[in-house]
């Protein structure tokens, strides 16, 4: 009971903080929209080309938006000492960290899901693959947040950890990108995509169960 209490208190706290800061929600979302709207301008009047690369565009943009938002995950808690208090709690640190990641995904990942169908239509993606696009984002973006959390936890103590963070995290994002954008493309062509979805689901489960431990351990190292 009290652990569930602490878990939801952290989620609620982070959501309230995000509502009061706003830019935390707006930044990744604006980035996502801007990047996607720039592609048609750059490519020019070639609707077929745009249509065929749409899944890739949306997924790459989502991945970059997720990475851009990562730094805010632990930064302010690290700077004002709240992180010390969270890690000192008698509750398992990994679960409290998971709560923070959940809140972070609700703030930065979920808005992408909401605007993605609109942007997909804008790029001319076939309507039969819209559902699959949403499904892959729903399965994939939490994995990005969870894996990213390990990287941020390792670099939060460094003043300029941004570059190292990208180098650490990007290679781990690649499998998600490959399977997710491939699933959307295949769905557009009417091919079966069960295998890709299964792999994404297994990624999600693995990330939920395995990522919080190294994240908590890395945070303990960082506040040292």
């Amino acid at each position: 009971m009290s652990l569930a209490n602490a878990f939801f208190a952290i989620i609620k706290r982070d959501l309230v903080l995000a509502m009061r800061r706003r830019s935390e929600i707006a930044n990744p979302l604006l980035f996502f929209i801007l990047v996607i709207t720039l592609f048609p301008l750059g490519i020019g009047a070639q609707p077929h080309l745009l249509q065929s690369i749409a899944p890739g565009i949306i997924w790459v943009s989502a991945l970059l938006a997720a990475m851009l938002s990562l730094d805010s995950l632990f930064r302010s808690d690290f700077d004002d000492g709240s992180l010390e208090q969270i890690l000192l709690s008698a509750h398992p640190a990994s679960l409290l960290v998971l709560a923070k990641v959940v809140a972070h995904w609700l703030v930065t990942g979920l808005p992408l899901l909401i605007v993605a169908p609109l942007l997909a239509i804008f790029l001319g993606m076939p309507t039969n693959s819209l559902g699959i696009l949403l499904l892959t984002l729903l399965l994939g973006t939490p994995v990005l947040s969870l894996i990213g959390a390990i990287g941020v936890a390792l670099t939060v103590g460094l003043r300029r950890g941004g570059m190292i963070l990208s180098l650490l995290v990007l290679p781990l994002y690649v499998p998600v990108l490959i399977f997710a954008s491939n699933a959307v493309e295949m769905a557009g062509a009417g091919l079966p995509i069960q295998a890709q979805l299964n792999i994404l689901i297994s990624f999600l489960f693995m990330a939920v169960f395995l990522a919080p431990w190294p994240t908590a351990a890395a945070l303990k190292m960082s506040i040292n």
Partner: protein
Amino acid sequence: MLGSLNYSLQANSLSCIRDDRVLFEDLSFTVNAGQVLLLEGKNGSGKTSLLRILCGFREPDAGELSWCGDALSDSSYFADLAYVGHLEGVKKELTVYENLKVALALGQAGSYSIMEALTRVNLEDFADVLVGALSAGQKRRLSLARLLITKNILWILDEPFTSLDRQGIALIETLMFEHCAKGGMIVLTSHHDLTLQGVDVQRIMLS
């Protein structure tokens, strides 16, 4: 009063080495229920490092700590501990009350309710004020209110008197006295002279 068990914190020949510099070595002490341990020493003498070792943020380079005779990880140590460090550990975008609510959710309810604790530290009129609007001394009192609302035995305080005015200092000393009288214990660093009458104060000079 805080339970029938006789609490004690023991340190056995601790040492801490930072950047090839020995801050302290072979440091042993025992703090029993009702006692205060005051760490003194110059800046950079390892006071904060020792407190962070006690909090489990750092591993001692040698030696061990035990809580009621058991190793820290095998005991209820982290549930019995409350820490106020250099950083306040409060969010400036949340109100005073919201901050304490989170702190309460992370620990176990103590003897004071949130409003009682705020009254105790003279912040009762600020419950709905954003912490960003508080002065440094008020923030410090808020972080000390956290000690009251959660159930804990051992207070670890790093320079608790920083940015407090004279009444604030007197208030904290009263709270510390009451905590010890109830069978709690305190480890702190301070440049301020402690005036705790009737409390067993041990001093360790780090050099």
